[in-house]
């Protein structure tokens, strides 16, 4: 393998990881923009999605069905969590909400251990994408190519949804000024629940997508949360564009770090984050800080 094809293969790996981070961080960023909550349980949604997918596949043998069922199941859990626990806290300081979601990390992780056991489980990729393909002299698992295409399609779809539809306009109005939106006749309570459930569902979806390359285990939720938060810090809280650009940067930094600087690989993404915060505290595409 030549140097260039090696670089190319790494870049594709980084892109696959990047779109995974994008699906996760976009939920985080939407929830924050709307509800002003940093949802620390977002990694738990990712974990729940992976396990829901695992069970669906075990029962039906159909990966595509898992991609549908898992987000729905996790979305319902998210909606319940918002309605019963987060809603009573909106009038309190945002800190209480952050801490509440922290409690849910323990709850969800132990529930998963209880139901599925603590062992590492793997999800087999769908039949159609189980082989590898040659691209520019590099051998790439075709599942990763599927992930990249799927992630980019999702990015475009989300952009269209938020910028070009009536529903998106309502969401943007809610992010900008929830009280005013409510005054204009928007049922803001419903929008809050909807956005939280939607973000949770995206987290669950990313768990299923990640399954075939990262395998499922109970601590996976607490593990992925930190890179996802870094993406949000780098891209800027509440910004869809920031979430996309941040994911791609962090995905590449992590992957190339692992390949070229194995001694310092885990630290690189933090260096990237520190640089961004130093030069632009609100993140690349974030609103200016108050």
């Amino acid at each position, binding site marked *: 393998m030549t140097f260039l094809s090696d670089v190319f293969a790494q870049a594709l790996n980084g892109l696959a990881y990047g779109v995974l981070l994008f699906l996760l961080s976009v939920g985080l960023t939407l929830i924050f923009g709307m509800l002003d909550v*940093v949802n620390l349980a977002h990694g738990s949604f990712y974990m729940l999605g992976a396990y829901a997918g695992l069970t669906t596949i075990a029962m039906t043998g159909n990966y595509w069905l898992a991609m549908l069922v898992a987000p729905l199941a996790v979305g319902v859990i998210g909606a319940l969590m918002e309605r019963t626990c987060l809603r009573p806290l909106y009038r309190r300081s945002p*800190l*209480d909400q952050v801490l509440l979601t922290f409690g849910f990390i323990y709850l969800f992780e*132990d529930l998963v251990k*209880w139901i599925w056991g603590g062992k590492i489980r793997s999800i087999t990729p769908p039949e159609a994408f189980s082989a590898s393909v040659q691209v520019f002299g590099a051998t790439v698992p075709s599942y990763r190519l599927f992930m990249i295409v799927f992630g980019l399609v999702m990015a475009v779809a989300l952009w269209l949804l938020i910028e070009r539809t009536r529903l998106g306009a309502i969401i943007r109005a809610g992010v900008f000024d929830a009280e005013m939106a409510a005054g204009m006749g928007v049922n803001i309570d419903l929008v809050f629940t909807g956005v939280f459930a939607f973000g949770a569902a995206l987290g669950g979806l990313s768990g299923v997508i990640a399954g075939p390359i990262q395998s499922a285990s109970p601590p996976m939720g607490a593990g992925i949360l930190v890179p996802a938060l870094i993406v949000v*810090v780098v891209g800027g809280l509440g910004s869809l564009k920031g979430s996309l650009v941040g994911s791609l940067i962090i995905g590449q930094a992590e992957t190339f770090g692992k390949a070229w600087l194995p001694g310092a690989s*885990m630290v690189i993404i*933090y260096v990237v984050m520190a640089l961004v915060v130093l030069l632009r505290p*609100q993140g690349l595409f974030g609103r200016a800080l108050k």
Partner: protein
Amino acid sequence: MIARLLGLGALVTAVVAFPAVAGAYPVKLLQEILIWGVFAMSLDLLLGYAGMVSFGHSAFFGIGGYVAALALKSSPGALSALVVPALVTALAALVIGLFSTRVSGVYFIMLTLAFSQMFYAYAFQVAWLGAEDGIIGVPRPTILGLNLGQATPFHLYLITLCALAMLLLWRVVRSPFGHVLRGIQENEGRMEAVGYAVRRYKLVAFVIAGTIGGVAGSLYTQLNLTISPDAFFWTTSGEALLMVIIGGTGTLWGAVLGAAAFILLQSLVSSYTERWMLILGATFILFVLFAPGGIVGALRRRARVRT
């Protein structure tokens, strides 16, 4: 006042005399409560007084723990056990604080969290810190001619240091400096307008809290004779936050109560069931939802109802 002093005296006597009446395991639990109590208390200085929600306090616990482990292995004395860990953590807190206090609110939460994870990642990866196993076989020091390898001198040493750290924090929050921190928590903009250098106050609070957190980490190494990367992991910060919230924020002694509740509950529950994390998570959620003032808040409400 006199009743309070008497109560405090009785409590100290009970803690000091505890090994005379209890077995090795309860004594170890008490010592853990003291160390985590100091750690949670130092976090309460940030959370309950300056209004800074740090999810990265584990960085200082870990730094204190690792520095003590390395230093004690090369020379087991007071310098290695206390002075060097405290100085190194103070320096680390200064650097992290310079970055983190540039931002506030959720950005502060995420930045502190990321910094502590950076240390976790580093400690987990490099060989000179023992990678994922951490550092094991740390000797206990000899200080002022006392061999702390023995149980009784170690117990007294631990109590003395924890009491000093708590006293120091108590003095800090009651000083004019502490009142400025309270003011910042109430209304940062107004304090700025009145002419206080808010960022500098926050930085100093961050360094004080970090340094004491580092001392707690160093004591933790000396108690367990080992330290692993888990000390850095962000859930360590989260657990300290749990202790502060369960006990009651902005009260200092609530943090110690919270640490005691956390550790006793953990040892009690895990002897009956494996579902400790589930119960912990649920307890915590219930506290946030229904008892935001924590144990101290509930006690105070009851006291008010009676009078």
